[in-house]
């Protein structure tokens, strides 16, 4: 019966539980301190890779890819417009999922990621709308049309703004996080609408260039740099999200001993 007493003694002594080691990564990820320290090590490498991939994609797409038969060189805006629009939507999912995890498991770290994702998503949505407008002028003859795709993207921008505003609408951080998370989750309805808008309505906006279910509707010489740019934007998004999340950690944990130790260690060394 020694195994039983061992088990009891370890429980009574309050030692680390060995119940589910496979879940440890989840708990670690939930620790702001662990995330802050680790992400500080990842950031320089991640930033370097993001920069290299983005630079490669840009030079390839803007200077080396062939021009479009119908649209001429204005089509090159696709190399920033599509990746930005892609990440504006993926970023919304990331924000909503982080909010859901916060609501379900009361994970503070997850709420911090949600808050950090909102301004990044808003800026990416703005980039998609702006480059789309500039592209519209030579292609459609107008900067702006109240087309289903463009209008639903504008709603996405307002949803991001709403999540950001709700963070400041409450005195209690918990109440603000919960309200933002609920708005983020409700707003996910808009994502499939954005996606399907070019199929459901008669839009001026061209249908999707890239689909998971079929081959891309563009030549490989044009498609490869676009793929590189999308990967580059994902990497950039990761860098931006980590940077913003780290600040949120500092803001909320500034009274804790580990942040104080971090600052004194930096000042001393």
């Amino acid at each position, binding site marked *: 019966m020694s195994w039983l007493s061992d088990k009891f003694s370890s429980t009574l002594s309050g030692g680390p539980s060995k119940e589910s080691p496979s879940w440890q990564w989840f708990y670690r990820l939930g620790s702001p301190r662990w995330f802050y320290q680790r992400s500080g090590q990842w950031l320089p490498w991640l930033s370097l890779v993001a920069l290299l991939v983005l630079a490669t994609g840009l030079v390839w797409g*803007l200077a080396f890819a062939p021009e479009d038969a119908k649209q001429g060189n204005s089509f090159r*805006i696709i190399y920033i417009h599509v990746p930005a629009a892609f990440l504006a939507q993926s970023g919304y999912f990331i924000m909503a999922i982080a909010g859901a995890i916060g609501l379900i498991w009361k994970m503070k770290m997850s709420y911090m990621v949600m808050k950090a994702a909102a301004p990044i998503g808003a800026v990416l949505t703005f980039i998609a709308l702006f480059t789309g407008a500039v592209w519209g002028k030579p292609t459609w003859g107008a900067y702006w049309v109240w087309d289903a795709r463009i209008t639903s993207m504008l709603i996405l921008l307002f949803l991001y703004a709403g999540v950001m505003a709700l963070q400041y609408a409450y005195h209690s951080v918990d109440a603000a996080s919960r309200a933002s998370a609920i708005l983020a989750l409700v707003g996910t309805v808009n994502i499939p609408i954005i996606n399907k808008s070019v199929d459901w309505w008669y839009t001026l906006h061209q249908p999707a260039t890239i689909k998971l279910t079929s081959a891309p509707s563009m030549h490989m010489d044009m498609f490869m740099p676009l793929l590189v740019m999308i990967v580059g934007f994902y990497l950039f998004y990761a860098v*931006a999200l980590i940077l913003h999340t780290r600040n949120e950690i500092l*803001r909320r944990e500034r009274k804790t001993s580990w942040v104080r130790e971090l600052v004194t260690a930096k000042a001393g060394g």
Partner: protein
Amino acid sequence: MYFESFEALLNMSGHGVYVWSSLAVTLAAMLWLVIAPLFKQRALLQEVNRDIQRQQDRELAAKTASLSDSHEESN
């Protein structure tokens, strides 16, 4: 390169204005997304540093006050 000259790349047969202005605004927005948090981080760390200094000053003041008190009592 697809274009024959650097001028042709800049001009993009008349579409250069649209492409390069899109790129400029995009790069500016993306740079802002990574540079603003770096400045913010510095400000946050300085704020924590000031808090620590203030606390140390208070502790030091309390210590000297209690020392001078005990000095007066012994007289």
